[in-house]
């Protein structure tokens, strides 16, 4: 009889879930809201600031072309290469800046940790797919653009279940 009881309880549980709100995030229409503006790092204290580790943003006015990000990436993904830019900054005599290949990047954020000049951060932008491999290589000019993001959905928990929206 306990078998029959268990079967009935299981069926009942299944039927009960017909009334619970659906949990699926309908991705292209809904986008998750993330904490902060992205992962940042304070070299003074050596502690990061929480945020999504998405695509990088490069502040040209801070970058000195020191290659530390590139060196940090060397054993990890080898995604960062230094390229010449047609800009003149007085702190960047060699006029080289990082260029990131997102086909290789693993988004570990150790390059952000390595940057001592507040130049390289990460943003909330994660939609980087493209049809060609070369479009995944972001030049310093592309990296400087602040992404426009509309992310407004987060998990809501209430009595009728958790849902996105």
């Amino acid at each position, binding site marked *: 009889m306990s078998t029959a009881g268990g079967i009935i309880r*299981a069926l009942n549980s299944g039927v009960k879930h017909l009334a619970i709100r659906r949990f699926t995030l309908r991705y292209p229409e809904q986008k998750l809201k993330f904490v902060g503006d992205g992962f940042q790092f304070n070299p003074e204290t050596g502690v990061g600031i929480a945020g999504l580790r998405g695509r990088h943003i490069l502040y040209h006015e801070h970058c000195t072309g020191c290659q530390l990000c590139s060196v940090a990436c060397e054993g990890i993904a080898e995604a960062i290469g230094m390229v010449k830019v047609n800009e003149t900054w007085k702190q960047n005599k060699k006029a080289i800046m990082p260029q990131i290949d997102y086909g290789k990047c693993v988004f570990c954020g150790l390059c952000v940790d390595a940057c001592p000049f507040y130049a390289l951060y990460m943003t909330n932008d994660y939609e980087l797919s493209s049809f060609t491999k070369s479009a995944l290589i972001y030049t310093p000019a592309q990296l400087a653009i602040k992404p426009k993001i509309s992310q407004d959905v987060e998990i809501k928990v209430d009595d009728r279940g958790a849902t996105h929206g």
Partner: protein
Amino acid sequence: MSTIAPQFRLSRFIASLFDIIFWVLLIFSLVGLPLVFIVLFYIKMPVVNGQMLTPYLAMTWMADPSRTLPIIKSFMHTTLFHVLAFPGFGFAALLSAATIYVERKFLAKIQLRVGPLYCGRIEGILQLMGDGLKLISKEIIIPAKADKPIFWVGPLLFVGTAGAFVSLIPVTGGWVVANPAVGLLAVFATIGFFPIISVLTAWAANNKWTFIGGLRALHQMIAFEIPLILSLLPIVILTGTLNLSQIAESQQHYWWIIFAPISAIVFFICILAELERIPFDLPEAESEIVAGWLTEFSGMMYGLIQLGTYLKLYAFAGLFTVLFLGGWNGPSVWPAFPADIITNGITIGPITAKIAGLPLFDQAMLNGILWFVIKTVGVILLILLPRGVFPRIRIDMLLHTGWYKLIGLAFINIFIALGLLYAGVLGPGGLIQ
């Protein structure tokens, strides 16, 4: 191999058009028309309104819309229509397609998912069509060392047998494709074909996984066929007939599930096992034997098997309805057609609208179909539900259930039915009925 397209010339185009027209006319008049008449000579044409329906008469009537109604009506009573459209294949396929869609949405709901969403704009209602198109357009891959004739014919036979099964299910009074006096025995004979087909195709694919799956299907179906037959004996004992239509009609006052509840439970479990649905889907247990006896099927062959499976699902649900839930009997909820509407049409102010289809149906038939469909859909939903809440069981547990528990349970209800019969409560000359 690509060739450059020749330059377009109007004269050649026109000449080729004439060529085509000439040959079409010639072949049609010399071969086609005689062929049509030869065929029509052998086929008995129905008698409509006291007139023998000749091809000329049919064409005459088709030109006049007001006189097409008798043709349609007579056509609705031909065997062809029965087999292809209403109680037969078309109706069942429609219900099966709806079943697939409902199953996916229903399961998604239990699992807190969304299910098909984008195809067809409204909650993915055209998903099935998309899947069908995908299956049709996919390549059919035959294993190199397969036994090709059996492998090819397997899915077709499966659908054919499922169709034969569907044809035995009466939908409403008089609307059944095949109505043999030994209908229930015919059902047993039909479902006996399924294990053979699965084991043959499994063997023919020449793959270890398919063979294990085929043997499992065989074991499972044989083990559950006996309790299936035994669980229906109380109905036969109580009604004294094997004809499914008569069994359905005998439940005008009481459903047999009242007097044979254990049989109904046993029969329901056996349905699940025969359909290879989730607690008993061992022949397709994908984590053990890749997809069981369906492993090597691809493209439309797999689609045919799926079609057959869902036809079978509909047929079993219909059988459950007919045997236990009173068939098409139910309170009259369909409003009666007033006689003047049938003859004169509806008159609203100056406009008189004739409803063309009304004489084709009558109230009892529509009512019967309504109740039959409602009950069948309920049974189908009950069949779908275990997929959401139960895991697959093991082969030894399955055989143990089939051979020991269910057969014993089925016998209990046989004795109950015999007791009712000898006590004079039910049966011929009993208190009830």
